[in-house]
């Protein structure tokens, strides 16, 4: 009897695995998106509330764990404040110089995008920084391929899927991401690919192009809706490609994507400026 029961169970499991195995194998791209749309529409308000509450809990935990450090931090900040006051005067002058240089490099002036602020409502289920889901979708004018940034010019990813009230954003560190890029200091061009949510690899850099550790890597603006000049990260390692034909640079993101809460979608570039 036991054996018969076991065989019955094994048969059920085998049939299920075979059917869904075939489905995985022949999985047509975006075929199941209408079902995703229904699911996301149903859970949207709860998802938003869960995310909001989780950030509150995370903040409270952060405050509790940092109480001991606050006094020390206060003294440090007071000292830093004095230093910053003196630097501020110097930066005003540098701002003018920066605007002139950006103009020369044909980079877009900062703050010249039509932005749509969005709150992150869910993250990659494994917490590995491959994708995020934002609370803005088709209703708000979001389209596939739109770049997603923070702090005006730091690129975090691009819109991959759009639903009525939410969108999936593939982060620049995801292995599914591929963006044309350029090293701002030397002009070396390459393609930035994500490395499973951990870092980015700038590939296809010509051996003759100059590239140094610490250089900033920005978007090149070639061949997509992504404007030129969005910061992707800084070069932390330089290697040869496996076939030794090109150079590869390991690019570290400038911020921890797991700490993101609010992002901005570039809906348009104000061309008149």
């Amino acid at each position: 009897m036991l054996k018969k029961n076991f065989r019955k169970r094994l048969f059920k499991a085998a049939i299920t695995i075979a059917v869904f195995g075939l489905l995985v194998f022949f999985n047509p791209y975006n075929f199941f998106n209408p079902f995703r749309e229904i699911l996301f529409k149903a859970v949207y308000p709860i998802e938003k509330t869960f995310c909001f509450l989780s950030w509150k809990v995370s903040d409270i935990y952060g405050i509790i764990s940092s109480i001991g450090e606050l006094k020390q931090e206060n003294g440090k900040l007071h000292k830093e404040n004095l230093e910053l006051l003196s630097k501020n005067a110097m930066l005003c002058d540098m701002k003018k110089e920066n605007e002139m240089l950006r103009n020369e490099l044909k980079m877009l002036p900062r703050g010249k995008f039509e932005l749509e602020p969005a709150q992150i409502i869910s993250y990659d289920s494994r917490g590995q920084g491959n994708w995020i889901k934002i609370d803005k979708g088709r209703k708000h004018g979001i389209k596939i391929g739109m770049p997603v940034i923070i702090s005006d010019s730091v690129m975090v990813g691009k819109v991959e899927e759009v639903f009525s009230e939410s969108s999936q954003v593939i982060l620049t560190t995801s292995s599914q991401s591929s963006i044309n890029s350029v090293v701002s200091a030397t002009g070396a061009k390459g393609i930035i690919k994500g490395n499973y949510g951990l870092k980015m690899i700038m590939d296809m850099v010509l051996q003759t192009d100059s590239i140094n550790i610490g250089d900033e890597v920005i978007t090149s603006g070639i061949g997509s809706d992504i404007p030129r000049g969005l910061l992707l990260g800084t070069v932390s390692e330089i290697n040869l490609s496996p076939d030794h034909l090109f150079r590869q640079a390991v690019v570290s993101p400038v911020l921890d994507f797991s700490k993101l809460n609010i992002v901005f979608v570039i809906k348009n570039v104000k061309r008149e400026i």
Partner: protein
Amino acid sequence: MSWRNMEIKITRLVLILAGVLVQTSVLTIILPPGKTPNIILLIIIAWTIVAGFEKIWPWAITAGIIADLAFFDPLGKNVILLVLASCAIGFLSNRFPIENRAGEIIAMFFIAASAIILDVFFNIFFAELRGVASKEQGLFLIKNIATQIIIGTAFLYLLYAFLKKVENRLDFLAPSQNRENYEK
């Protein structure tokens, strides 16, 4: 379909949806990157221990489909994982009944550890299949296994206690009686 049956189905569906939301919108914010165990997998395992494979396998398929849709995974990936885990746990829980609290905790630890290891290697296998696997990814996943096992054991124990209460509330038979019925 009677109202009672409908109520049971709605309760189970709500629990699965809650599990998916906790995974993507709570744990990924509260826990450090890469330390989040697969909560849906733990829910299905705990449920199989409580109610048996026969009763849970259609729900393992449902949970897998919902997880695949919500996690942007290819449809079927989580279904295979959940049905496989549920079948194995159903087979084992019939043969090794847990009799005391200490035994329960040790058993939970081994079950959570096996489930998380299976989940990690399953992910590496699928990444390889899709051509997006890398050595760093594998190392990153393996590096976080220990933390995931500790967190997973705690979750599995809590889920087991919670689902036991839920199943009793839904007027199901006690787990031990349930198993005996399946044996017959």
